[in-house]
């Protein structure tokens, strides 16, 4: 019996997988054809997996409609125990009798060999539209186990596991759940946040398209633990296929009496409703998401009160990312200790990352926290000499350089590099691209998605965008650079919500890690030989306030607080930021040849 699964996620479909599916149907009349989700290797789409009797599964990659006939032929030849067509096979799976000795196992390919697929284990294998297939692969056993536990036991297990919010905040999930349990209000809500709007992040989409039942199961267990009888999934409306599959999964689960009234004969009843976003990235923010479901424009509210205290319709509400909830079934089945076996102490477990940009192997992967950026670069097939920069965490994240290549990917280390994990989007930027352009794209996105409520984000992000545009076009001045830096700090410290707070991250991280790109574009410095001028700190005026040391982009100024500071002339790039910012006018520009002191004009301070 020839059975073939075709990967039908959005990426696959946009590459022609539907045509392949139909082509296979036509070419092989009596084969068993089924749908699967996405394994994660976008660059291999369309993918088709074929199993013949007890022989190992063969995986064909970059399949076109023309290949369908050949694939059926190979299948038929295997039925007759004849080996043929190895050159078309991309890889094979470790299940059943060996057929093609010289073809690699999928787990050994450079894309998959380092991955640890826990959450995405069934993606690309189960039929996302069949609850039976899900059950056959162990689905809903976690729910059965959970319903025999007490809610407090489940919360304590999740807390013990150290699971942190996978949407970007990294907030300990168990702690969030506990806060709701202790509320006196009887009505609680659970919202699954599927508003993945970060450019560069698509692993949530892939997960939901490929294994929607796992998400449903995670929601059910969470709802049971939290005493919730009405849960929502807030999803982006742009993800049409994922929405369809979710609707289908909910309907199928209800039909099997695994959702709805008295689930599995217990007192637990749950209704899951879908709510679609309408094209607003900011609705991924918790309070904006709540506003959206409540029928208003999606503008965030100041926190506190936090949603766990006063959320949807004023009731305590837990909002968890899709990936966070998808982790729950495995934690319940295998225990918190099993979960802690992956990742690092403060960042346990695995994370799904999406790879795109100037790399060969784009797609989503799953790695334990603590894996390094160089590992990811390897998986992505990045050429060492093309590694210029990496954007982590989308436009709210940061840009890191080759210097960070050994950085472990976990919440603590990434924050140390002035970036954020965010939802896990990783975009590789090659040598040909200008980092400043990447900053520009990101700011363009932020400006179009700002809700407009608070001054620093509404006005400030537009202003830093205008400055970046000027600099990118070669019309920037050194004042522009100074203003860019200080305004970014104000936006970061005074914005009302996370979108504004993280809006300047690309600017700040690129100034720190890619200052040369700014230098190249600001005409005032072009042609001014650096050793003609130098900046000196006047000991008589220096108060040791340490401001200059803080803002120096090259960390060239040192000194103890309240003591005279010193500029390392070898490291100093003569940008002049320190002189302009010094509140005591203690730093002066000297012309080395003529030994004259020039006064710097300080703008903006009265």
């Amino acid at each position, binding site marked *: 019996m020839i059975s073939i699964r075709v990967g039908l996620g959005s990426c696959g479909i946009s590459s022609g997988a539907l045509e392949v599916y139909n082509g296979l149907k036509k070419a092989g009349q009596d084969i068993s054809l089924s749908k699967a989700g996405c394994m994660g290797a976008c660059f291999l789409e369309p993918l088709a997996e074929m199993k013949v009797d007890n022989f190992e599964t063969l995986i064909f990659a970059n399949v076109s409609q023309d290949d369908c006939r050949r694939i059926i032929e190979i299948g038929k030849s295997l039925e007759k125990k004849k080996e043929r067509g190895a050159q078309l096979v991309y890889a094979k799976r470790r299940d059943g009798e060996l057929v093609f000795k010289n073809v690699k196992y999928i787990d050994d390919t450079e894309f998959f060999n380092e991955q640890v697929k826990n959450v995405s284990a069934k993606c690309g294998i189960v039929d996302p539209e069949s609850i039976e297939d899900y059950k056959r692969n162990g689905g809903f056993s976690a729910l059965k186990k959970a319903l025999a536990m007490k809610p407090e036991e489940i919360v304590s297990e999740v807390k013990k596991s150290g699971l942190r919010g996978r949407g970007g905040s990294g907030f300990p999930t168990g702690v969030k759940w506990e806060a709701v349990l202790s509320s006196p209000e009887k009505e609680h809500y659970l919202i699954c946040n599927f508003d993945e709007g970060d450019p560069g992040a698509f692993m949530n989409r892939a997960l939901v398209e490929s294994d929607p039942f796992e998400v449903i199961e995670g929601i059910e267990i969470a709802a049971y633990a939290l005493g919730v009888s009405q849960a929502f999934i807030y999803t982006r409306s742009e993800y049409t296929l994922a929405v369809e599959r979710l609707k289908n999964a909910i309907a199928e689960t209800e039909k099997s009496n695994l959702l709805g009234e008295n689930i599995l004969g217990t007192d637990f009843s749950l209704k899951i409703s879908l709510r679609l976003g309408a094209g607003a990235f900011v609705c991924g923010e918790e309070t904006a998401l709540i506003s959206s479901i409540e029928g208003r424009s999606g503008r965030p509210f100041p926190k506190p009160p936090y949603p766990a205290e006063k959320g949807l319709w004023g009731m305590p509400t837990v909002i968890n990312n899709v990936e966070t909830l998808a982790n729950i079934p495995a934690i319940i089945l295998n225990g918190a200790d099993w979960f802690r076996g992956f990742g690092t102490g403060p960042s346990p477990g695995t994370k799904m990352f999406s790879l795109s940009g100037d790399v060969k192997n*784009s797609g989503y992967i799953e790695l334990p926290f603590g894996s390094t950026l160089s590992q990811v670069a390897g998986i992505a097939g990045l050429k060492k000499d093309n590694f210029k920069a990496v954007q982590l965490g989308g436009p709210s994240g940061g840009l890191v350089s080759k210097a960070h290549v050994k950085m472990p990917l976990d919440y603590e280390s990434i924050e140390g590099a002035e970036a954020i994990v965010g939802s896990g989007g990783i975009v590789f930027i090659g040598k040909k691209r200008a980092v400043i352009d990447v900053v520009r794209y990101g700011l363009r996105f932020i400006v179009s998605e700002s809700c407009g409520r608070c001054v620093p984000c509404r006005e400030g992000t537009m202003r830093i965008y205008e400055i970046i545009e000027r600099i990118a076009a070669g019309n920037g001045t050194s004042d522009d650079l100074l203003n860019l830096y200080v305004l970014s700090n104000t936006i970061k410290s005074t914005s009302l919500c996370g979108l504004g707070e993280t809006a300047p991250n690309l600017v700040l991280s690129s100034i720190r890690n890619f200052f040369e790109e700014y230098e190249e574009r600001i005409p005032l410095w072009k042609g001014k030989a650096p050793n003609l001028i130098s900046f000196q700190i006047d000991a008589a005026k220096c108060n040791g306030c340490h401001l200059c040391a803080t803002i120096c982009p090259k960390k060239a100024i040192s000194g103890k607080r309240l003591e005279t500071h010193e500029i390392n002339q070898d490291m100093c790039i003569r940008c002049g930021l320190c002189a302009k910012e010094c509140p005591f006018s203690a730093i002066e520009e000297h012309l080395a040849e003529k030994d004259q002191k020039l006064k710097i004009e300080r703008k903006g301070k009265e």
Partner: protein
Amino acid sequence: MLMSGKADAKKEETAKSPSSYEIEESVLSIIDSHSEEKSPLLPILQDVQKAFGFISPQAMLEMSETLDIPLSQVYSAVTFYNEFRTKKRGKHLFRVCIGTACCIKKADAVILELEKELGIQCGQTDGKGLFTLETVNCFGACGLGPIVEVDGRIFSLVEPKKAKALAEEVKKKEGLQK
């Protein structure tokens, strides 16, 4: 506010623009279909957008009156979310992704090419109401950028040449190719 019933000259066009009464009936039945939900404004707006291609003042008034929500709240939601339109878009909708990964793959060049081919600026609809060109902040198919969606179908790896081909195919359908 009243929809004018201008019938299209082409014989293929069988449906006339709906009358004001028909709009009201449709909107009311959409509102009714959500009567079991709490705070159903957004789902209702989405259904109306899908049914008519835009949200008319009349539809907004109906929602405001029936749901007992201030008209300003309805209008605020309609103008806040990218998905909702207050004017009908063209018959064929071209949407280009300008997410980071797609921008890196030169999505801006794709936009320029489509602007040239369709004869409109990004964000506009042409005079005959046939084409609309817009950008989208990320379809979530970043691995295969640049991404262009034409009439609801997503195409990947669309560099300017492929974009031109997509535009030409649609123009052919409308009998505009020489």
